[in-house]
């Protein structure tokens, strides 16, 4: 019996999509499912004989253990403040670089240098510079009596803020680049109409530029939030999560439990919680931006 053309087309499309589906299943869904499965066990690769099903205990531990709770709070604090600062600074820089000129293009090229350095190296550089004994910044700060005698990264009150500033130093240029691309794509006629109608600079900014920039802001915020929430490299090499647990983050916790202690069960639970938080934040961002879009643009 001959198959109909529409059926053959269906099979063809299915076959074309199959490699991609298989790939996603193999490298995305299967490990995710495994991770969810492991998270219900007390399972340590170094002590496999002691493996036991513990239900949601790993998740309960995450939210009841003070050190883990601290890691969650640190992660949120780090993400919130670093992304907010980067958004404000990035927007300001993007506005300054908006006008197309040779000078601005050169400045932009130099501005992007920090974003090209791997975060691990950035962490090592700042650690070296902030050290109280040899650091080019830390030594003089200590001599001048500014900040803690042992260095800014060694004080529980300052360490996380220093890490936030390091993150801003590195990633504000990326934020600037995304927002600048958004600014360059704004419809010139709309902005020109505003100017012709006599709108002031501030009115043009908050009534025209900002609403039109919402998709770019959403993109920049989502990308940076997801990235900041997974911060690991710079923390690992600068403070190792210390002093005390003042700079411990969820990824630090997950990597330590999984790759240092081989505590697969708990590390999987930490990974799943991190994933859920990121999904939640992305959803909230999407809703907020959409609501703002509706309110401002009426669509």
């Amino acid at each position, binding site marked *: 019996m001959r198959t109909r053309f529409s059926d053959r087309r269906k099979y063809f499309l299915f076959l074309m999509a199959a490699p991609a589906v298989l790939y996603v299943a193999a490298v995305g869904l299967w490990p995710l499912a495994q991770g969810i499965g492991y998270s219900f066990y007390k399972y340590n690769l170094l002590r496999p004989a002691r493996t036991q099903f513990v239900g949601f205990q790993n998740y309960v531990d995450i939210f009841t253990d003070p050190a883990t709770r601290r890691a969650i709070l640190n992660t949120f604090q780090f993400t919130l403040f670093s992304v907010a600062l980067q958004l404000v600074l990035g927007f300001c820089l993007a506005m300054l670089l908006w006008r197309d000129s040779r000078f601005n293009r050169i400045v932009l090229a130099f501005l992007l240098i920090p974003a090209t350095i791997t975060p691990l190296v950035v962490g090592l550089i700042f650690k070296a510079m902030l*050290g109280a004994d040899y650091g080019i910044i830390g030594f003089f700060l200590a001599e001048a009596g500014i900040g803690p005698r042992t260095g800014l990264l060694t004080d529980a009150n300052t360490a996380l803020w220093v890490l936030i500033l390091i993150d801003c130093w590195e990633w504000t240029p990326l934020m600037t680049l995304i927002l600048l691309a958004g600014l360059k794509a704004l419809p010139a006629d709309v902005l020109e109409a505003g100017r012709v109608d006599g709108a002031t600079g501030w009115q043009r900014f908050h009534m025209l530029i900002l609403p039109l920039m919402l998709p770019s802001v959403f993109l920049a915020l989502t990308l940076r939030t997801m990235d900041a929430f997974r911060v690991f490299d710079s923390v690992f090499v600068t403070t190792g999560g210390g002093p005390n647990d003042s700079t411990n983050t969820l990824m630090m916790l997950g990597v330590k439990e999984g790759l*240092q202690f081989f505590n697969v069960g708990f590390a999987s639970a930490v990974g799943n919680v991190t994933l859920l938080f990121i999904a939640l934040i992305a959803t909230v961002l999407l809703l907020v931006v959409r609501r703002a879009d509706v309110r401002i643009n009426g669509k």
Partner: protein
Amino acid sequence: MTKAFSSFMPRSAAYSTATVIFALMASTACVSAKSLDGVTLTVASMNDGFSKVLTELAPAFKAETGADLKVEIMDYGTLLTKTTADFIGDTKGYDLVTMDIVWAGAYAENKYSVDLTDWVKRDAAELDLDDIYPVVRKSLGEYNGHYVAYPFAAYANVLAYRKDVLDAAGLKVPTTMEELVADAKKLNDPAKKLYGFVANGQKGPAVAQDWMQYNNQLGGSIVDKDGKPVLNSAANIKSLAVYKELFTEAAPPGAIEYDWGGREESFRQGMAVFMQTWSVGAPVYSDPKVSNIVGKVGIAVAPVAKGMSPQYGVGGWGLAINADIDKPKQEAAWTFIKWVTSKKIHKEFNMMGAGGFMRKSQMTDPDLLAKYDFLPVIAETYEHGNGEFRPRIPEYPEIQDLLGTAVNSVLAGAATPEEALGKAQDAAKKLF
């Protein structure tokens, strides 16, 4: 384990190394039966003083046995991760593994390595066991009466001090912890950028391992007689208070961030008067390329609390054979272990800068003594050595991490010793 050692080989040393290798090859060339022809042994080796020497000895081993020796050198964390993955995955990637003594519990519990007990008994005469210090035999190889590894490179925890500074102040080398604390404070002179004491302060293994050393010398202990954690015992709390006192009143301001590398660097730069360290790093203080204190350093046994019987820290590495590899390969790996730890080769191993002395005969060997004048200190350390001050139990990595956070938080002023160790103890109890 210490990571501070780096080898810088001057030209003369390179010549002598080449001569030693040539001599070893020549002396073994007459052996016609090369029982291990075609065999390749892969060693997962910690990047330490001995690792480069192992690669340099490979041609001599091949000349004698026919076997190729491939040495894969890696840092501590990578070594632990890669070898554990190899054991768990049964992938047989490594035939031999350098095993830190604190991994012995995990090796034993999971049967990662070949139980060498019967082979040790069988080859006892050849191994010349009596020539190896009992503490080294016990802590670098044995676990619960079984050899999970064989002693390979032992280190003594010693006190390195600035002879010139002590002489100028008219002070003797401290023999008790009380004297060390008093002298460190007395000699501390931040205006001249000279500090009385330096130790690891960085959160994690660095501060945990250094504090456990001082804790041992002050009479503290991490586990009780039954092997259960007693992190917040009165002795431990007291010793942590002393450690904090040393950091606050006598250490460089940035010492709270130091790991092994930072600590050694500050001592080599002449910033500190006293530092406890693993003996493997001692030769570097005489190397003008990296040291500002050449000829000004003395090595002594580590001080202990007044009235306490001497007990000094012993650490180092054993060689373990992967239990997953097939029997003939296991035998070949055992042949290598016997060869490299034999009196003759192990002496050359140390002459070439491995820094892992473990035989009694090495302490009185004229050649070694001429090169390493601190050998009597190592001998004394081993005579009263304690390889258990870092508990060699399967839960050690987690306990070390808990202590790494607790001690660092005390040094940072974020908690008192009682609070920090109490919190660590609560978490440690859950591991058992």
